[in-house]
């Protein structure tokens, strides 16, 4: 125990028992103090700032020796009120907010919200093909970057630092593609109601093809490094077990559900954005443990690569096709172009609205200041995010702003399985179990 006073967690006695503040290098004094008391049971607060709890997740573990007897999660440390904020912005601006929720899969947050808005607008069939293909392309690239982080941080947490470094190395390539296509590495706000914000930049398809070729060389490295690694398997196999009945009861989806052998993937079962046109397989495993989830993520990256390849082929034939719905009362008016002082509205567009078309000026002004109105009603269009079913319950009262937008985030739901996955196991396995759920606290707390 340190001599410095900790104002936030002062050591001492409370009605719940003795409180220790562990600051590192002081285990001997802690165990000595515990040895004096008769009780073996220790309640440990892990987090919210612990490096292996995936962000600001607080775990409250009740231990007997090294065995976890009870595990509970404390969440809410990253609650930012995004859903409430969206009620005060226009429908298009909502995308800018929700992309920040699950920061490892921003395109999915955007897509599920936008699909809900499009269903309420009743323009689902009017979205141009190129916009749909670009959405699929970005989502599948995003699935790879998200799975790479899941594998990388999961590896780091059990001490496999190389897995972390190579995971982030490849993720960087995906983020470079995002930057090329959308202009930003994250927080893109690129998928808009009616389509996407802008067309593919010149040279993007070549970059994507280079990336695919490189990933075909790099992905086998993960398999060679981990799949049969005895330490890796020793730490992951049989850990965080949750069978199909448990998944159904607790509402788990995504890789955790598929690791029980049930091939439930919304891209296949309830296709959206034209997923029925792509050739890919739903990946399953039958061990219902952390190792199975790791293998599913690895295999899903191969499937995503397949889809990205098909998207690139389709986009090659769609050059110059529209990426935004034709309805000028909905389509975001600005046409971006690179000017001498960076990216901004294209001069052609400004000439058009200022000098040629009064209607274009009116639409531009109305959409930018007021936004469009969405007919009253509610919609829920879930999609298969890297973590499972992600859906936005979008409610409109007929106004220019969302009346309510609620996100069913898979991280939030899946994290409920922490206790059933880790109780009865070792403390070290709690970390592996949570890493196999792959929660992102930005999505959990919203």
């Amino acid at each position, binding site marked *: 125990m340190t001599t410095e006073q900790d104002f936030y967690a002062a050591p001492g006695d409370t009605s719940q028992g003795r409180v220790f503040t562990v600051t590192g290098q002081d285990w001997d004094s802690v165990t000595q103090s515990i040895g004096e008391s008769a009780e073996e049971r220790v309640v440990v607060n892990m987090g919210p700032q612990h490096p292996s709890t995936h962000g600001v997740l607080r775990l409250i573990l009740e231990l007997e020796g090294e065995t976890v007897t009870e595990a509970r999660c404390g969440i809410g440390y990253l609650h930012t009120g995004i859903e409430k904020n969206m009620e005060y912005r226009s429908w298009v601006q909502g995308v800018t907010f929700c992309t920040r929720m699950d920061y490892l899969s921003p395109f999915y947050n955007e897509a599920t919200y936008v699909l809900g808005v499009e269903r309420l607008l009743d323009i689902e*069939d009017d979205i141009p093909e190129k916009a749909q293909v670009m959405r699929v392309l970005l989502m599948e690239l995003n699935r790879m970057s998200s799975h790479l982080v899941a594998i990388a941080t999961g590896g780091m947490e059990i001490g496999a630092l190389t897995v972390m470094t190579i995971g982030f190395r490849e993720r960087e390539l995906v983020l470079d593609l995002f930057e090329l296509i959308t202009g930003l590495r994250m927080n893109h706000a690129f998928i808009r109601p009616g389509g996407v914000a802008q067309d593919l930049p010149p040279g993007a398809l070549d970059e994507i093809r280079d990336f695919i070729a490189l990933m075909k060389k790099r992905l086998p490295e993960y398999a060679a490094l981990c799949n049969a690694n005895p330490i890796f398997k020793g730490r992951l196999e049989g850990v965080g077990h949750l069978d199909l009945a448990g998944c159904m009861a607790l509402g788990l989806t995504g890789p955790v559900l598929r690791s029980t052998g049930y091939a*439930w993937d919304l891209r296949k079962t*309830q296709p959206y954005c034209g997923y029925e046109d792509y050739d890919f397989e739903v990946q399953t495993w039958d061990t219902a443990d952390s190792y199975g989830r790791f293998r599913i993520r690895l295999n899903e990256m191969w499937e995503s690569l397949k889809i990205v390849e098909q998207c690139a082929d389709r986009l090659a034939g769609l050059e110059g096709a529209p990426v935004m719905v034709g309805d000028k009362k909905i389509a975001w008016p600005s046409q971006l172009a690179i000017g001498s002082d960076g990216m901004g509205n294209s001069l052609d567009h400004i000439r058009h609205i200022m000098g040629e078309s009064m209607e274009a000026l009116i639409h531009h002004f109305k959409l930018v200041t007021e936004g469009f109105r969405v007919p009253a*009603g509610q919609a*829920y269009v879930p999609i298969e995010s890297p973590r499972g079913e992600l859906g936005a*319950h979008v409610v409109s009262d007929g106004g220019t702003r969302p009346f*309510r937008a609620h996100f069913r985030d898979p991280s939030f739901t899946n994290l*409920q399985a922490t206790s059933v996955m880790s109780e009865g196991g070792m403390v070290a396995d709690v970390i592996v179990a949570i890493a196999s759920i792959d929660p992102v606290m930005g999505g959990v707390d919203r």
Partner: protein
Amino acid sequence: MSDDKSDKNESARPAEERNLETAKDETGTGTGVEQPAPEQSPVNVPAPTGEVRAVGERRGMFGVTGTGDTSGYGGLVSATMFPTPSARPYGGWFDEVSDALEARLEATELTSAIESVVVHRGEITFHVRREDLPFVAQMLRDDEALRFEFCAGVSGVHYPEDTGRELHAVYHLTSMTHNRRIRVEVSVPDSDPHVPSLVSIYPTLDWHERETYDMFGLIFDGHPALTRVLMPDDWPGHPQRKDYPLGGIPVEYKGGSIPPPDQRRSYN
């Protein structure tokens, strides 16, 4: 996914009308012509009457009030209309689910458990009476013809002007067996915000009900530990209710001041 897909040139028509026509087409009695006859064209047909559910109203047009409003639209009052309850047939598998549900409810003499059914944009919503919610949910989960074994969670909605039913709890249920998705909605008054908990039927709702309680003050009777989950334990109020302010302070920059988002002038 949507059942009431219609031609693109019909997209301006009211949804109810298209529902009816789609339903007619499916039963084989409709004509299925591309263009409706002149006297039936959308502009000449009055809006379908029926039970209209207004949940509020909007006044004015441009977000200005008082003497500053020179638009001439300041006195405009337009009601906020939500999709009206639909009539049979709902179309597609919607009828199968409704039949199975009604058959089971009749067998247990709970025929009034379903207040109304709304089909809108290819999604079906069952408005369920609050006291019958656990029974209906249990049946939806267990009945062989229904089998909605997966619950995606509960989402609260606050309609301050929907008098007597201000707070809504909205559940999205998925049948993985039949690959179907429905919505179950319960409405309760603000003065008595109690909803029976469904945690014993769908354990996944544990945190979801805590979140809805946290954000809307809906009290889920029977929940094992209904505490706040996202906000701090001692937080006053329920932040996502409409009567809870967004908060924020004016931002000043070079002498100018921008009010917080909820106090800015906005279109209504």
